[in-house]
């Protein structure tokens, strides 16, 4: 396992040398959050409750949801996987006693960690700024569950990214697919609006997909719209999804390699 730890360490060092790379995400992120807050502020000038959400609940949904996004973000890991594939770097992992999937996982941990610190810093400022409009209530049990969801969400999102990146085995480049799938995932995880706004059928689809565990579910738990029991079950489902994603990723990797070998990059 020491090799994977060294990968984390190397990548962390690399990120420290190129701090601005991922830091530059911050400006865009901040704008996205502010846009959402503006929209909801305008809406709540006319009404008091939208689909069961009061104004402070909605603002909390946005702010704490984004905090959750940042804690689990991997900053376009799929593009790294894509490049590794079409540039033939994957070959390196076929000749050495190291697993690519474990490598990319470790790599991502090292890569996200520097940006993580900056994003937490930024979110603290956002929270401080909107503190009058936010709900702060967190009992220890919920906090623990949320922490579990942060860990699980992080892993789940790495799997999403790696799988999207591996599409490059078949298509070489993933720019368009990457964008569309990114929006799709954002939509179905509840980044744009609370998923209860959706018609029942669409909501049922969301519940069958793994995406809502990385935004919607944790914010619901935080806002008290999910009971502790429901939250615990959600975490169990999320962990089950991780197991499923693990096998799907492995399957995709073996299939992809067959393609890779055929083309002989």
């Amino acid at each position, binding site marked *: 396992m020491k090799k994977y730890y060294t990968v984390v360490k190397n990548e962390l060092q690399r990120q420290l040398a190129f701090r601005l790379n991922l830091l530059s995400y911050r400006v865009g992120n901040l704008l996205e959050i502010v846009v959402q807050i503006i929209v909801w502020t305008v809406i709540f000038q006319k009404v008091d409750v939208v689909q069961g959400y009061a104004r402070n609940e909605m603002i909390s949904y946005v702010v704490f949801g984004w905090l959750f996004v940042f804690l689990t973000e991997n900053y376009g890991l799929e593009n790294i996987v894509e490049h590794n594939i079409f540039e033939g770097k994957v070959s390196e992992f076929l*000749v050495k006693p190291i697993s690519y999937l474990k490598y990319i996982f470790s790599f991502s941990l090292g890569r996200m960690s520097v940006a993580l610190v900056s994003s937490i810093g930024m979110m603290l400022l956002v929270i401080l700024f909107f503190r009058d409009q936010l709900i702060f209530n967190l009992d220890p049990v919920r906090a623990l569950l949320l922490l579990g969801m942060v860990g699980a969400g992080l892993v789940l999102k790495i799997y999403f990214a790696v799988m999207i990146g591996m599409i490059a085995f078949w298509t070489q480049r993933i720019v368009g697919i990457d964008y569309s799938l990114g929006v799709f995932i954002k939509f179905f995880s509840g980044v744009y609006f609370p998923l209860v706004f959706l018609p029942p059928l669409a909501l049922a689809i969301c519940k069958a997909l793994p995406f809502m565990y990385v935004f919607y579910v944790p914010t619901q738990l935080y806002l008290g719209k999910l009971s502790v029991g429901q939250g615990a079950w959600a975490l169990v489902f999320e962990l089950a999804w991780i197991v499923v994603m693990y096998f799907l990723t492995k399957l995709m990797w073996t299939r992809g390699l067959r393609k890779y070998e055929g083309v002989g990059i």
Partner: protein
Amino acid sequence: MPIIEVKNLSKAYEYYKKAPGLWMTIKSIFWREKLLAEAVKDVSFSIEEGEIVGFLGPNGAGKTTTLKVLSGILYPTSGAVRVLGFDPYKRQKEYQKQFALVMGQKNQLWWELPAMESFILNKEIYEVSDQDFAERLEEMTTLLDIKNILDVPVRKLSLGQRMKCELVAALLHSPRVLFLDEPTIGLDVVAQKNIRDFIKKYNAKSKTTIILTSHYMEDISQLCQRVIIINLGKIIYDGDFKELVNRYATHKTLVVTFNDRGTQRTEVESFGELVEYNPHRCVIKVLREQAKSAAASILSSNLPVDDILINEIDVDDVIRQIFNQGKR
């Protein structure tokens, strides 16, 4: 017992045919003709432990493909390959720990970090002990004279320095088999020689079996006793390098320089084929076995000879000749 055995290896790639132009590109979205390109066809050879074998052939001949099959990156379409008793394609850890692949056109070092960090990562990947690591690193960095650049980010190194570091990274686990794919590509003559000398010394000491591909004849003639020439996916020669040169270099060249008076074209034409002519210097191509007698008769003629040299034909010319034969 050979350490590398390749029997009737073939490897075909899939690719798609597409005529140029926008319209054809649009058409190819809906309908593409799938084709198979045979990169390697029915190749067989075996290599004994400790040998350095040169793999020669023009671009696209199938050298890299063969190395990729030997290192387990590619699955052979047909045929049997065994290296150190392993089937490379199974990618067993025990096999991976005993060989290394260096590609001159690719780098495994972390670009933004000092080479030392990549060395340490490889140490962990191959589970090399601290003591072995320290000893091997010391030995190789001394031989290559790169101790002072180990803590400079790799992207700041020259190509030659980087290649040296690539070699160290690949050899830290002391592989028994080493595949070197154009290790000197793009290097200046001094750097080329450094790398060559290192490989020579390293092989002499560690008895590592090496397959080397290169387009520089100097690499091959300095390092390899045996060469395998591959062209259009087929082996066209497998044997001693010197013999190859003797077999194909049927001629020698005489370089004759004349004194101030110079000479007439007609006076020298009779000695052999004139490759180059000016009144003070002629290059004459003659059959190998006649080289001595031709030189003697030039010297004993009444031409104002100042100096005469008997040269082997350039190895590059020999190889060019062989490659061209393969095309026909």
